[in-house]
């Protein structure tokens, strides 16, 4: 059990040193990676560990981004305040929605969450005098840890201090999620995923725990969304469309949803993949679709799953 921690420490160090070796363009790409990775850690608690596939999760990304925009409008300068606010907001919104949705599983849960996600999307359009409708809402640059970094321009700020800030957030988020997943609570979530009926007979409060997983995943999603909104400087209704939720699922499956690090691997791979494909061809969506289809059919364990298999192979055939 220590090995993952070593790997994580090494990877974190690599990321910390990255700005010294890699051009700023790619560092800039890492910010959305951090955002999506955090959101996906939460998403995977719901999907990989509790067995619930939500097709409306982009809604919480939206709450994060629009929350940051609202805070901008209120003149808030501290990003930490924004994070706290969006965590609370997403939890409060996730509670009633979750209460309704966790009564169902499988396709129905997926459709219900898709419906709620699109409902949120339509609200963003209908109340355009608040949300800016199609044009979105501005997210201003803010202080991180109370520091303004006024000397840095936007790009320098994003590829410098903010990069490390987000790396820090990801590490913290991953540590928190690691503890959750390896706790008694996490064990009960997994029993729900594997056999909800049997879990009930072992005293597992199935509905309560599904709801708890839903709310926690919402909070992580909001943090990710705030980072995304901050980076672009804009909260955009497209962030909330059902195809964005589909993209989240894509990232989770790409990385491997049965694995703790899968979501992180998945979001990094997706971001890099999309970037490279976009520079090759304007038909990158087709390529991504083909990749998703291939994974679903042939490699459902995703990249992390494959890596694990490879590791086992290399380590010999010990049981």
């Amino acid at each position, binding site marked *: 059990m220590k090995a993952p921690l070593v790997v994580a420490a090494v990877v974190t160090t690599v990321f910390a040193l990255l700005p010294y070796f890699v051009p700023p363009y790619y560092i800039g790409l890492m910010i959305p990676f951090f955002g999506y990775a955090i959101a996906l850690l939460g998403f995977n608690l719901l999907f990989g560990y509790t067995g619930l596939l939500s097709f409306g999760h982009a809604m919480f990304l939206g709450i994060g981004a629009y929350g940051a925009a609202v805070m901008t409008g209120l003149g808030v300068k501290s990003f930490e305040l924004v994070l706290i606010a969006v965590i609370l907001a997403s939890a409060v919104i996730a509670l009633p929605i979750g209460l309704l949705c966790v009564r169902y599983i499988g396709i129905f849960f997926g459709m219900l969450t898709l419906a709620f996600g699109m409902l949120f999307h339509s609200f963003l359009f209908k109340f355009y005098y608040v949300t800016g409708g199609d044009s979105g809402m501005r997210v201003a640059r803010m202080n991180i840890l109370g520091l303004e970094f006024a000397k840095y321009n936007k790009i320098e700020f994003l590829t410098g201090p903010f990069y490390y800030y987000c790396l820090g957030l990801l590490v913290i988020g991953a540590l928190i999620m690691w503890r959750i997943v390896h706790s008694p*609570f996490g*064990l*009960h979530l997994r029993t729900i995923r*594997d056999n909800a009926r*049997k879990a009930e007979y072992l*005293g597992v409060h199935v509905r309560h725990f599904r709801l708890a997983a839903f709310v926690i995943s919402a909070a992580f999603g909001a943090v990710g969304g705030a980072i995304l909104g901050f980076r672009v400087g804009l909260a955009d209704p497209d962030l909330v469309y059902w195809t964005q939720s589909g993209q989240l699922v894509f990232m989770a499956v790409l990385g491997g949803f049965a694995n703790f690090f899968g979501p992180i691997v998945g979001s990094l791979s997706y971001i890099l993949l999309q970037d490279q494909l976009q520079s090759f061809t304007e038909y990158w969506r087709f390529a991504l679709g083909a990749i998703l289809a291939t994974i679903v059919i042939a490699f459902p364990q995703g990249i992390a799953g494959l890596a694990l298999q490879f590791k086992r192979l290399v380590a010999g055939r010990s049981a």
Partner: protein
Amino acid sequence: MTVLLETRNVSKSYGVFRALEQVTMAVHEGEVVSVVGPNGAGKTTLVNLLTGLLDPTAGEVLFMGESIAGVGPVALADHGLARAFQLIQIFPQLTVRETISAAVVSRQKKRWQFFADLSADAGINARVAEVADIFGLGPRLEAVGASLSQGEKKLLDVASAFALDPQVILLDEPTSGVSTSDKHRIMKTLIAAAKRAGVKAIVLVEHDMDLVAAYSHRIIALSEGRVLADLPPARFFADSHLIETVIGRRGGH
């Protein structure tokens, strides 16, 4: 002797169909009570009522004096009643250790601990090892559910129910699918395990009359929703008419 689990004049109807009619029975401390009867006699309905899955149409279902009508499986586990099923129910991706731990977590009320390290919890691990040993699953603790043999899965299913520290355990055809030569061995293991685990009474639903004869203190026979007999084995098997109704052929064992 204290009454642990009982029904009083319980009836259950599904629309016009009356599955159970005025059934009164009790399970006392220290007893193994078998419920037998032909298919359709109402055994499953009675068992579902006894384990809080159904609301009776009339009458009461009491556990330690408290009504458990329709409380549901989760509350059941908290009350101290456990149930193991005829069709094996396991967690395919969880190890034996994790499966038993899940029950222990419920029992030790640690379910809402978000940040505690499960693997470091000595209290849980000790209890898991204990229960696994009782059922001979010690060497298989780290094996994943899907990789177990049918027999091992069955044992795990029952072991996880035992790990709840129930006062009463309900076993639904625990030896079904097990080869005849193994049946007695399994039953002896289960009953001994129950004693060691502190279980105070067992309710057994069985078709195999050999086992019923060998291990029950009392046999309750259901037929067409009514209690036909509530007798110790000696008297039960002496009544050939009874045997015929329940098993459908003349002669006893």
